[in-house]
């Protein structure tokens, strides 16, 4: 589904990604772990199409298409979703209408008719229930006055409604208490499906107790230093990131 080859990227003139190779197949869940400043969030943003992040080399294909040739909005409509580490507040703009507009943009690109208003509301309410969000969120501005945890739930809610083929979650677990973490994990797990894939970007092993990944990668200094199965995450937890860096040098 997603194939990244020798991807390099620069942010504000600084080389952050230095040749990433990664392949994610349909049905898989990958976890990308790594210390602060390793390039995890940059990778997520580059994949979602952030313009001010400059790709300097390599290629990315998404379902056989050249992903890097698409704009951010085209990527979203093609089925890629990024759950933001820091969701942005947009006061005065209705949260749910915006979600509806996003869904309709995607449907339009797929040649489908606009979603029926009542069906949409029923769908959102059902997903909100799953995310244990109060209906008050229906009428509020986008992330306006939301707590950190509420913003993260709102990201997962958007993901559940948009049903992306590939979901990238950028530190969605950070700042969540254990109850919220369970709710968010349940939301992500409900999307697991042989036709979809999930990439989790995270600092901590804790999230992987709830969303069990098929593969774990360690990103450090702009490169993937080590890949493995779930046991790699457990080992990292025990031995720290320095262990990966050292073992590579050795």
């Amino acid at each position, binding site marked *: 589904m997603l194939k990244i080859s020798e991807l390099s990227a620069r942010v504000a003139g600084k080389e952050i990604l230095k040749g990433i190779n990664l392949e994610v197949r349909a049905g898989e869940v990958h976890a990308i772990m790594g210390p602060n400043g390793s390039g995890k969030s940059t990778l997520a*943003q580059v994949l*979602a*199409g*952030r*313009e*001010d992040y400059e790709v300097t080399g390599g290629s990315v294909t998404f379902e056989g298409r050249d992903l890097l040739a698409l*704009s*951010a*909005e085209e*990527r*979203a*409509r093609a089925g890629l*979703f*990024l759950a*933001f580490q*820091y*969701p*942005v507040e*947009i*006061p*005065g*703009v*209705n949260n749910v*209408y*915006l*979600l509806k*507009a*996003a869904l309709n*943009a*995607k449907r339009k*690109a797929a040649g489908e008719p606009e979603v029926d208003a009542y069906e949409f509301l029923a769908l959102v309410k059902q997903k909100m229930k799953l995310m244990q969000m109060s209906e008050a969120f229906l009428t509020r*501005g*986008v992330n306006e006055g939301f707590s950190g945890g509420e913003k993260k739930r709102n990201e997962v809610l*958007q993901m559940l409604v*948009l049903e992306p083929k590939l979901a990238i979650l950028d530190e969605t677990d950070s700042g969540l208490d254990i109850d919220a973490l369970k709710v968010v994990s349940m939301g992500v797990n409900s999307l697991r499906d042989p036709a979809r894939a999930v990439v989790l970007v995270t600092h901590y092993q804790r999230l992987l107790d709830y969303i069990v990944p098929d593969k774990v990668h360690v990103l450090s200094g702009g490169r993937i230093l080590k890949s493995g199965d779930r046991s790699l995450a457990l080992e990292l937890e025990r031995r720290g990131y320095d262990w990966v860096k050292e073992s590579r040098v050795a």
Partner: protein
Amino acid sequence: MTPRQHSPAATKSAALRSFEAQWLAREPDPLTALREEAMQRFLRLGLPTPRDESWRYTNLRHLAAQSFVDAARTPAGYLEPTDSLGLSSIAERAATVLMVNGYPVLPASMDLSVNGIEISSLRELSRSDSRLLARYLQPLSDADEARRGLLNTALFADGIFLKVKTQVTAPLVILHVATAEGPDTVAYPRLIIEASPGSNATIIEHHVQSGDETPLCNSATHIALKREAQIEHYRVFATGPASKHIDSLDIRQERGSRCSQFTIALGGGLVRASLRAQLSEPGACLDSYSLLVGHEERHVDCVNIATHGAPDTRSRQTARSIASGTSRVIFNSKVVVEAGAVRAESQQSCRGLLLSPAAEIDSRPQLEIRADEVKCAHGATTGRLDPDMLFYRLSRGLDRDTAQSLLIYAFLADVLTGMSVPSARAAIENALIAQLPDSQVLQKFR
């Protein structure tokens, strides 16, 4: 009658000479002595120039070379205002009083009253109760931001006096229509609002134009809030791109009164809007909101001065400026806390959004504090659309135009949410959104 003396013509610009000629042609009325003084002061001070502090960013040089004559009272063929920026939905719900080039179009009856607001013509009032009128035309001020107000005081031929007597729920719209048959005309609309103690009303001044040409509009409004009175006042500038408008608003507030003021610049080629508020008794409270939209080559200059002259007074100024094309938007705000105005509180929040590289926004919040124990906060920021916000929307699949419009709309939300009249808010939002890219889509997001 006071003798009329004039300084040598050689030193005067064409505009100044033409204003003087207008003055000389005016019929004497019971206010002549006061008007004479205003005119003499204006002639002595001359047209404001960028050397005057509050005119730093607006140069009227091009007007100085013009000779102006009075705009017609009832131009031939006049009937329908071109209400292109559509606040019509307000008019449907509220009573509307029409003013054409500053002349009220009122029924013959003199004791007109609409929903608890008495409406009279200033021309009539200057004959029947000139003392009342004189009270609201004074004190005359030489301050440069009041300069154009002096000219209006000298030359306004008619206007409207509103007396708010009770708690009035339906808004009253003053629809100012500017229209001209030729170039080089000038109009002097004048409005005086007196809010009786404990009264409450919403007054909307809506400036539109009819036809292709407009007079130079030199308008002035005075709002007097008696004890515990509450007024929500709007001035909406929505004339065409060639029009020039200089508006002076004076607000005087007594004990415990509350004024919410909205200055909305959606149209006009040159809009200069000043606001001077005197919080002269304890507990007076002013909330001023400015929503200034610069488009194409438009020039919008807004000057706010709030003077705290008594203890426990409060003022809050919220300005949101947007500039695109080669437009320029200026927001100058000043808070003065006079000696003795202890426990005064003020806030100034000025934010600007630049939508094109050639546009310019100048925000200058200033403070002058001469009392202790006051709380004054101010902040000014100007920038482009936040790329994080934009990316967030794009990453959900929204069109770029829609995403940008949404962010612009969100930027203005602080001003819009201050409006307590839903129909006014809806109409202003509609007019605003109509100017943004992808406006039809945007309508649905509210």
